[in-house]
């Protein structure tokens, strides 16, 4: 009897600790994804402003790509961690970001010069 009581108490204690840890891990991971996507969004919005006034054909391709990146970031369902295409869409955003960096001739880790630290998530 004491054995099963002990087990139940231990299980309940473990569950509580598990939920707390799960919440921490989830928050950490969510924050990481949020920071990454937020970075891409800020980057894209800035370039949208910078390129807005350019009318030449080369720039119009760049603007189109930047706007496409903004679109795909804003369309992402941030409130739904059970979204079935979550990883797939995040990878699409990362790919789009890399493509935009390539068009703008910017290294995607923002490393310019060898002594600066690079951007990682």
């Amino acid at each position: 009897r004491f054995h099963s009581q002990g087990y139940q108490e231990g299980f309940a204690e473990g569950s509580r600790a598990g939920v707390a840890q799960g919440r921490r891990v989830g928050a950490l991971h969510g924050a990481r994804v949020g920071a990454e996507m937020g970075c891409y969004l800020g980057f894209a919005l800035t370039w949208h402003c910078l390129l807005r006034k350019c009318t030449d054909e080369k720039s119009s391709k760049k603007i189109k790509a930047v706007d496409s990146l903004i679109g795909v970031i804003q369309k992402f369902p941030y409130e739904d961690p059970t979204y079935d295409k979550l990883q797939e869409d995040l990878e699409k955003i990362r790919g789009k970001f890399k493509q935009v960096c390539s068009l703008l001739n910017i290294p995607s880790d923002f490393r310019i010069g060898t002594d600066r630290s690079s951007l990682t998530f």
Partner: protein
Amino acid sequence: LSGAESGCGRGVPCVHQALSHVAGSGWTCRAVLGDGHQRTVRRVAWSPCGSYLASASFDGTTCVWKRQDDGFECVATLEGHENEVKSVAWAPSGSLLATCSRDKSVWVWEVDEEEEYECVSVLNAHTQDVKHVVWHPSQELLASASYDDTVRLYQEEEDDWVCCATLEGHESTVWAVAFEKGGERLASVSDDRTLRIWRRYNPGNQEGVACSGSDPTWKCVCTLSGYHSRTIYDVSWCHLTGALATACGDDAIRVFEESPTLTLHCSASVLRTSVEAEPSRRNRPRVSFSRHMSLMALAVFPVSFLE
């Protein structure tokens, strides 16, 4: 390294050209392009027009060289991959280039009339190192092979490149892929020692293969097991004769041909190989056909089925 293209391990692409027209005479090295890359050059590919050479390197870059009268000039360096570029391939139109890398991504580049290259898409569909990319012989359809055991297909849909099919079935790294001349079939080879043939089924096909919406489905229609005793690294599908050649870690090259009598809608069968398959091995050579063709195949061959 495939038979048609080769790269050197010293970080230098070599270009060889025939010395004279006398039959059986040798080759001369016409150019050494030693300054383009800082690490192993893994693959080279001629453009369809023959004026350009693309080189993919472990230094993470892909160089495009233009043939001049006195040699080759580097006209573009495509950067962006995070690490080793494993393969490069030109689309049949000559205006698109595809690269793939250990960074798990496939990049599609477009070249315009002014020889400017720009990245049109970065595709992160694979979950591991991508070993090989190859274009469909006549359409702008791209195939890639990966350490994640899959072959993926990509095409442009509504202004963006997407992964339109994933071919699952191999049990280990897929090292190479080759399209048949007509482009309705694809061959893949793997570390799992099998050569697989896949066929495209369009919506409304007469074999009754289900398709989702207006997209074609690719099904594995034939698996050749027991012929190779080690990893198969490369495959080439002859566009003239229809023969398939494989390059294997067991030091052999094998040539597979299709029987003209076994037509059906399963079109791949192996009756002859140029190298005798060793008879006393654990796995006797097998040809297996996908489930929906089972009845037809059974009458002709003793076959075993793979799920």
